[in-house]
């Protein structure tokens, strides 16, 4: 048999109907929805007079728009409340399971799925959110879709999709001390650019990914979209199976063993051909930071912002506009720049491991006075675990306060907005203009770097603070 990629194996097993020279009707195993990109889809099927085809394959939770304080009170913002209420109403009407506000499983949709064991190897998973790529960490084909496609899934459990090309990104060797999964993906995006992955689905391979925890793999796959790739996946292995075992919605007992036997076949065959291959060495990767207004504009935290001369002529105007927005000059050194806000959270880095990393670093230290720090757990379960493990106490002693779960300042749809002109080191995924609030200036980094910046009050290399 012809050697096949992991991506092809999963994709081909989900094609219900292929149109010559066109898209395929692709079956979706798991559909996640939230309050912002689903109401128009429900309105659509209702207008057509069709029922939700497989309500048991869709799961809902409000995350984008929810407040992160006083969640027990009615939502103050009338529009946000309406949207969250609409999700509840739609789920009840169509028989869809909802982890609503104040439900013990509520949280950011991409934190909730893996945590409950809904996310499993070999699945196709979609959600009206581009960071659905997160679930690729389990060896699933997972990607973000638009609301028309949400409507397709509700109506037929399928979407029409053209098959993307395949890219493999191999990173050899273990990451250095103080270098995290977030630095790894920020490094890759800085090399590939914010558009270099467009049209591709990525497989991450090599020992740098194999040695990562599931949380780390999720961080990597989460940001695949930031280089334009529709998604990214990592072949499942023992780390994956151990993570899934015993989770509420995962197969149990004999069924789990059978599933593992099946999941073990999910890997790229030797000799399988990719449309594009990139190879990097983990030894070249250091703590990273972005300085511009797309995630491709990142560099080693110890280095300087590139000079204008090093930027391609056609891209100089956009580069200059980005630096103007950030209030930076080409050639500036990053270390030592003062920071106003630190945001730890989001579907990229709002998991328990991220909170542990921050707590471990700040234990016995104090947050700098000039820093406002927001720590937002990715889900109610993460929040609960952070309390149980004593992380909350450590964080509070260092001057941090834990907020309640949601997307929060990652996209600033709720009140968690970074004020105009202020600098925020964020563990989230996008440094776009105004992403964290109109005029807000975002620098993307790992939770470890964010913790170090919170303590120092300015940009620092976390490795140096650890050593001292």
């Amino acid at each position, binding site marked *: 048999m012809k050697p096949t990629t992991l991506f092809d194996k999963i994709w081909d097993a989900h094609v219900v109907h292929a149109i010559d*020279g*066109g898209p395929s009707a692709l079956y979706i195993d798991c559909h996640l929805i939230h309050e912002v990109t689903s109401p*128009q889809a429900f309105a659509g099927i209702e207008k*057509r007079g069709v029922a939700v085809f497989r309500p048991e394959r869709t799961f809902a939770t409000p995350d984008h728009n929810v407040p992160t304080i006083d969640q027990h009170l009615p939502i103050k913002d009338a529009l946000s409340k309406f949207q969250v209420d609409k999700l509840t109403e739609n789920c009840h009407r169509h028989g869809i399971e909802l982890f609503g506000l104040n439900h013990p499983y509520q949280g950011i949709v991409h934190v909730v799925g893996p945590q409950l064991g809904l996310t499993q190897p070999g699945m196709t998973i979609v959600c*009206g959110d*581009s960071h659905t790529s997160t679930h690729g960490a389990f060896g699933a084909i997972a990607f973000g879709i638009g609301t028309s496609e949400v409507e397709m899934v509700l109506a037929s459990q399928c979407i029409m999709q053209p098959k993307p090309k395949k890219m493999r990104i191999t990173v050899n060797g273990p990451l250095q001390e103080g270098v995290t999964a977030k630095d790894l993906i920020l490094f890759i995006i800085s090399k590939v650019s914010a*558009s270099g992955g467009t049209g591709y689905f990525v497989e991450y391979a090599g020992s740098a990914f194999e040695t990562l925890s599931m949380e780390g793999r999720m961080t990597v796959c989460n940001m695949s979209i930031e280089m334009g790739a529709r998604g990214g996946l990592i072949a499942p292995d023992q780390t994956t199976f151990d993570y899934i075992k015993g989770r509420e919605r995962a197969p149990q007992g004999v069924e789990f063993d059978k599933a593992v036997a099946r999941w073990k076949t999910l890997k790229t065959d030797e000799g399988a051909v990719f449309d594009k291959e990139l190879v990097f060495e983990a030894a070249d990767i250091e703590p990273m930071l972005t300085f511009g207004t797309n995630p491709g504009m990142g560099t080693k935290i110890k280095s300087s912002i590139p000079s204008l001369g090093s930027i391609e002529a056609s891209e100089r105007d956009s580069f200059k506009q980005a630096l103007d927005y950030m209030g930076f000059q080409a050639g500036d050194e990053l270390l030592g720049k003062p920071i106003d806000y630190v945001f730890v959270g989001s579907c990229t880095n709002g998991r328990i491991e991220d909170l542990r990393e921050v707590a471990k670093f700040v234990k016995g230290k104090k947050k700098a006075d000039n820093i406002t720090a927001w720590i937002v757990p990715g889900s109610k379960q993460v929040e609960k675990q952070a309390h149980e493990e004593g992380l909350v106490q450590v964080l509070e002693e260092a001057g941090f306060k834990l907020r309640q779960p949601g997307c929060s300042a990652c996209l600033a749809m709720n009140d968690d907005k970074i004020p105009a002109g202020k600098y925020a080191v964020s563990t989230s995924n996008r440094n776009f*203009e105004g992403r964290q609030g109109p005029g807000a200036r975002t620098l993307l980094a790992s939770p470890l770097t964010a913790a170090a910046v919170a303590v120092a009050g300015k940009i620092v290399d976390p490795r140096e603070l650890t050593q001292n």
Partner: protein
Amino acid sequence: MAQEKFTVVQSSAVPIALENVDTDQIIPARFLKATTREGFGANLFRDWRYDQAGNPIAGFPLNDSKYSGQILLAGKNFGCGSSREHAAWAVHDAGFKVVVSSFFADIFKNNCLNNGVLPVQVTPLFATAMFDAIKEDPKTEFRVNLEKQTITIQSTGESLGFDISPYKKECLINGYDDIDYLINLKSKVETFEMERTL
């Protein structure tokens, strides 16, 4: 549900020359609280178009009366970032039927196609020729013929072919919709569910 049928669009264009324009710029997140598809056009490019007090920012092309038309001409990697279909709705709601760029982000492109907006990918050279033609004369017209898959700069006669999947072309020309197509596949989907192995 039938959509508007798409055949030929001949119009002047509004130029947005920036690269890597993400969907947060096209429609910022704080305007995503609506539960219908209409009305997003008013906030298209909101933070480039209006200052924080809500006053129009002079110089931004959508505020410049010399630019108008049903074609949006954009820089490279247009529509990257968030999957929000609200970006395509905003473009559509603001009266655009065609978006031209030398490079589109995937999800935005799909979202446009699902809303009767035609994304036309041209070569960087042709995009430059279009920007130049507008600089020369903002009223210059472009003709987009979906049947022939061509885009023409009317003032110079320069023309270029563009790609579109035959399926999507058929959908746009006839106003068909993927959702109806999929609903009609129901028995095939049921068979798939029974026979699947993975």
